[in-house]
């Protein structure tokens, strides 16, 4: 066996010498893939290839890393590659990968760092997972609505590796039983939905042999041609997430008409088309919206589960091959689940990209992380390399100097990329007050302006007439108050008289009359002085006030008369009937006068 491989090893050694990657070649010389179990999962629109390796270090020296290789034909489509140790213990240790090159060999190579170096003669079980997007090509490329979708997969029969492989099996899983053709290397066995190749023995490094399978695959061939994910962090307790998604059916193109009748009445019509997809949002997602440029998309359903929120995203129309759609989905998250802080130090831990549909493929991702205004010392930890764009500024409600926006892009992502990103930054808590103060300040200025405007006179011309009018108005106001008071006096006097009629207490009556006289005099004098002032202002209202005064004098007389009448009644000088009679006439006259005063006052 060793003899068999030695010439090749020699060649490799020569190559290694020329490229001076001595370490690698020595390792390559000593490592052997003892046993490879490969599973090619073609049941979806992705090609997921998992290989379980049993690595054997045949050399004496311990090795700390080994190399994984990807075929040059498939390398451009490689979306994800990962390796983990399959130890005896349950938990698998994920290994660190680093891209590297091997001179003279095409394809992509990854150097896998082992957790502990592999001693000479030791063996290690490693699981390698790779996902390729857009490797299943529809063939024929155009189908009608009634036809089923056939796709072709072209790969490698062998496990592509820089090491010798002692034994290898390949199991291909398909989505349906219908297989048009498949390559028959080594007489594979085909059961329902899978094809078993191998075992192949003693395969030289970098061996390739075309594997081709043409089979029916009606799973949704959906591709997110671009997605922009905007995460806006607010320190007021909310994280808003919005994803703008361009979705495309990348299966076989629809040829000819689309018949709604067939689509509705025949279950297998348009079998490869996509009616809806299921997006899983975080459990705490709230206020989910799903819309596009022309409004809400009314065909969605939301289901709140215990550990997630499921949105059934149904595009406005079913997606047939080649058709595309565009939509926006957004939701709010409470920040306490994702934002951690220590003093002024903050850390945001969010998914860099989230689930859109199962087995998703994202051709181009743009993530925009909008941090609060005033965040500084920003540092980002990404789970995998991602291209940072220059930072931007974003202005929204009440912003003054803008929020920092981190922008990052990446292409060709799959489900395995749903991982957390951590953003560290510092933020001065005082800045939280800035926005409320801004609002308070704005209102303060508004009210202050109104106050200034109302209180001050901005007229550029003086209007003497208006001033006089205002003066007169204020005097009139005073007159009104006084006259009002005076009329009140009379009412008070009436009450005094009434009380007197019952109690027959002359003293009270006299004192009441005296206070009336005194108050009346002062009031009348006040009014007279006001009247004089009115006259001085040249207002004709003075005359009216004069008339009021005159009428008032009469009213007062009447009041006095009624007072006297009451005295006479009490003294028994007149009879009750006569008193009532005279009281009535007096009241009538008084009413008349009061009405007159009222009308005069109204005219003021």
């Amino acid at each position: 066996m060793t003899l068999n491989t030695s010439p090749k090893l020699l060649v490799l050694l020569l190559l290694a010498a020329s490229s001076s990657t001595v370490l690698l070649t020595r390792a390559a010389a000593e490592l052997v893939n003892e046993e490879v179990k490969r599973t090619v999962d073609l049941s979806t629109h992705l090609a997921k290839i998992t290989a379980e390796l049993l690595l054997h270090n045949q050399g004496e020296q311990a090795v700390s890393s080994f190399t994984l290789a990807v075929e040059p034909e498939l390398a451009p489509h490689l979306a994800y590659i990962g390796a983990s140790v399959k130890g005896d213990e349950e938990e698998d240790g994920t290994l660190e990968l680093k891209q590297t090159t091997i001179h003279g060999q095409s394809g992509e190579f990854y150097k896998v760092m082992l957790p502990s170096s592999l001693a000479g003669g030791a063996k290690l079980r490693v699981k390698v997972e790779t996902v390729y997007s857009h490797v299943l090509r529809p063939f024929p490329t155009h189908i009608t609505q009634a036809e089923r979708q056939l796709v072709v997969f072209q790969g490698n029969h062998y496990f592509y590796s820089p090491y010798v492989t002692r034994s290898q099996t390949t199991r291909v899983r398909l989505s349906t039983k219908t297989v048009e053709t498949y390559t028959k290397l080594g007489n594979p066995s085909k059961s329902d939905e899978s094809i078993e190749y191998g075992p192949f023995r003693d395969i030289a490094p970098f061996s390739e042999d075309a594997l081709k399978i043409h089979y029916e695959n009606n799973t949704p061939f959906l591709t997110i041609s671009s997605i922009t994910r905007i995460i806006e962090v607010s320190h007021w307790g909310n994280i808003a997430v919005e994803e703008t998604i361009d979705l495309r059916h990348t299966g076989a193109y629809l040829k000819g008409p689309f018949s709604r009748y067939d689509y509705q009445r025949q279950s297998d019509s348009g079998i490869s088309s996509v009616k809806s997809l299921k997006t899983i949002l975080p459990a705490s997602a709230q206020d989910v919206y799903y819309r596009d440029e022309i409004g809400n998309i009314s065909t969605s359903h939301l289901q709140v589960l215990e550990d997630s929120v499921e949105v059934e995203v149904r595009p406005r129309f079913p997606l047939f091959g080649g058709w595309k759609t565009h939509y926006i989905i957004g939701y709010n998250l409470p920040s306490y689940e994702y934002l951690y802080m220590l003093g002024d130090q903050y850390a945001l831990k969010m998914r860099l990209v989230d689930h859109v549909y199962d087995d998703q493929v994202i051709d181009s991702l743009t993530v925009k992380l909008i941090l609060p205004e005033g965040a500084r010392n920003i540092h980002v930890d990404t789970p995998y390399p991602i291209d940072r764009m220059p930072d931007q500024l974003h202005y929204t409600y009440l912003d003054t100097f803008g929020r920092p926006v981190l922008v990052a892009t990446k292409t060709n992502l799959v489900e395995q990329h749903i991982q957390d990103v951590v953003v560290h930054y510092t933020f001065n808590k005082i800045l939280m007050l800035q926005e409320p103060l801004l609002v308070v300040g704005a209102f303060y200025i508004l009210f202050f302006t109104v106050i200034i405007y109302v209180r001050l006179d901005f007229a550029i011309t003086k209007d003497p007439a208006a001033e006089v009018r205002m003066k007169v108005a204020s005097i009139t106001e005073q007159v009104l108050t006084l006259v009002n008071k005076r009329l009140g006096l009379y009412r008070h006097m009436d009450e005094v008289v009434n009380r007197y009629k019952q109690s027959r207490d002359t003293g009270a009556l006299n004192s009441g009359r005296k206070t009336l006289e005194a108050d009346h005099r002062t009031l009348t004098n006040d009014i007279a002085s006001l009247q004089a002032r009115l006259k001085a202002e040249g207002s004709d209202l003075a005359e009216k006030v004069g008339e009021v005064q005159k009428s008032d004098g009469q009213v007062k007389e009447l009041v006095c008369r009624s007072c006297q009448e009451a005295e006479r009644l009490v003294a028994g000088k007149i009879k009750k009937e006569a008193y009532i009679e005279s009281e009535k006439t007096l009241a009538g006259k008084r009413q008349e006068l009061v009405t007159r005063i009222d009308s005069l006052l109204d005219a003021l």
Partner: protein
Amino acid sequence: MTQRKRDLGGGGGGGGGGLRGWGAPPSGWLSLLSFAILLLAWLVAFSSRLFAVIRFESIIHEFDPWFNYRATRYLTENGFYHFLNWFDERAWYPLGRIVGGTVFPGLMVTAGLIHHVLNALHVTVHIRDVCVFLAPVFSGLTSVATFLLTRELWNQSAGLLAACLIAIAPGYTQRSVAGSYDNEGVAIFALQLTYFLWVRSVKTGSVFWSVCCSLSYFYMVSAWGGYVFIVNLVPLHVLVLLLMGRHSGRLYVAYSVFYVVGLVLSLQVPFVGFQPVRSSEHMAAAGVFALLQAYAFVHYLRDRLGLTPREFLALFLLCVPLAAVAGTAALVLLTYGGYIAPWSGRFYSLWDTGYAAVHIPLIASVAEHQTPTWWPFFFNLHVLLCTFPAGLWFCLKDINDERVFVALYAVSAAYFAAVMSRLILTLTPVVCVLSAVAFSNVFERYLADENPRNGNNAAITENKDSKRSSGGGRSGKLRKQHVASSSEAGERPGRGPTEAQEKEEEEGGPGIHLRAAVCLTMLFLLALFAVHCTTVTSTAYSHPSVVLTTRGSRGDIDVIDDYREAYYWLRQNTAERARVMAWWDYGYQIAGMADRTTIVDNNTWNNSHIALVGKAMASNESAAYGIMRSLDVDYVLVIFGGVLGQGDDISKFLWMVRIAEGEHPGDVRERDYLNARGEYRVDAGGTRTMFDSLVYKMCYHRFGELQLSARQPAGFDRARGAVIGEKDISFKHLEEAFTSEHWLVRIYRVKKPDNREPLENRLRVHED
């Protein structure tokens, strides 16, 4: 101040000292109260228009708003100057449309400006939301403007009531719900503001107010074609005032300034251009302007020369008819010379209701251009329809310059509304103003209590009531006038008081029970009105018409979103420059939602182009294919309501035929589509021409196989309640490209011609 006087009016009442407790000066309270009422009116106006947003979403409604929205987006994205120069090559293919010169930009500029200001303040509002909520915000402004106008005409309390009425009146709501982003939304505000400023300037004779009026008029001109109403009503007002002998210096200043400044400003709007000086619609204003100058000149001569009244009369009788004859002659000559455009067809249709049906089927085909029956009036105005003549009567009884104006406004608006159902919109504001006057009058009469006999309690209640019902300082005086004239009890027509009540009034005012009864009746009417408004707004006017709903069997609401489904399909899955042919009703929606080039749209400026599309729709497939090839059509879109039972293109098909027949009488004849009995049928009773027409084929393609329910046969059209007459429909030049879920929108792809024409029959050689 009024409060105190009122209190004194109570005379012997005991409220004298009570008022001191109010503390603040009453004028402050009153303005605060007015402010609060106006604010509430605004809020009500805004929130009562949000039914559609709450039930559906923030979405642009119907047809024209989609164009306005698209234009606004263009404005915000490209700036004002690009907007003015915008040549839209995606409409009216292949002609295109000079949008900048054929729109009233006021609406878009307003929305764009608001959007710009908000974004400058970092209030990041999407332009769509600005557009959706513009009309509700402006209806708040309209109620403020109505308040101002009514206050000028009557008093503050009537103004407040008018503001409340216009806030919810369905006649106005129908055009201003959230999402109804159309010119009328801002134009009614501009209309009311212009009228307020006009009344104000006539009242004050100040150049300042007159210039303000012109500016507001300019805004109106830039916003809506209805500005013609202003530019004719204002001169009419001036003319009537002259005839009534109410000429004054104030009027002269007001109109001269308004006309000159307004004319110059209105010439600045590109769409209006030189029309104000060159079209007949605007000549009345010019004529009145000249007349006013002549009138003033004659008066000047009288004063200058010291003429006796007799001489003056002679001069007057000589000059004025001379001027009138000269003016008319000049007008006629200029019209014949082609310098002044004669009346437009739309204008004629305002005087002769049968005109459009005969001459312009395109105008007649629009439902809102038809003469309304009585029920739209009642539906849109409810009780106001009954009370507004009363308000008019109050105004006429106590006439002054500005009340002449409102009377003319009421009469003319009522006439136009009776001619064209759409113009109920312009009637509504004046109806609200006058109804408010009527209600306010009645309340002042019956709610206020000036009778001292009723003692303390009445005086106190009166205090409260007067606060509620009457506003500013002048109301006290006004009320006195009414008290003085209260013996003329016939002042309230309609629901006037009975004779017994009249007697009571003669004795010195109605009794307390009568007052209560009248006030309660009025309040009841107003409450009914409010309920009616809410119901109508909610049920009839708050529908986007882009999204439909049906109620499922369990009472749940099913959203039927077929329009957007199909338009969005067009937007996403057709070539960027694909041309879509559809009947013109859907042009704006296709441009707005599908973002594709259209052949004709709702801006029906080119009748022959529309007729060509109508002809294609009405012709058989191969003839239509010729037309469609010549128009570079890629997709044809039809609306088909047979599954849902909706109105659709089949229902309006006869209009297409008529419009096509107007331009191509040789090719399309309406009678070919009607059967021998003159009926328009889609079932077996239809005609061959009908079955062969493109619309019929596109609507019913494969529909003959579809059985909607077990009780109905296949091919049963729910919209027309009949089984279609032709079930076997196949196409040669078209293929089905998309049909929405409920078949409401069907889109067909026009196939490119084959490289070689396939033979219809097999070659004879083979048969031998």
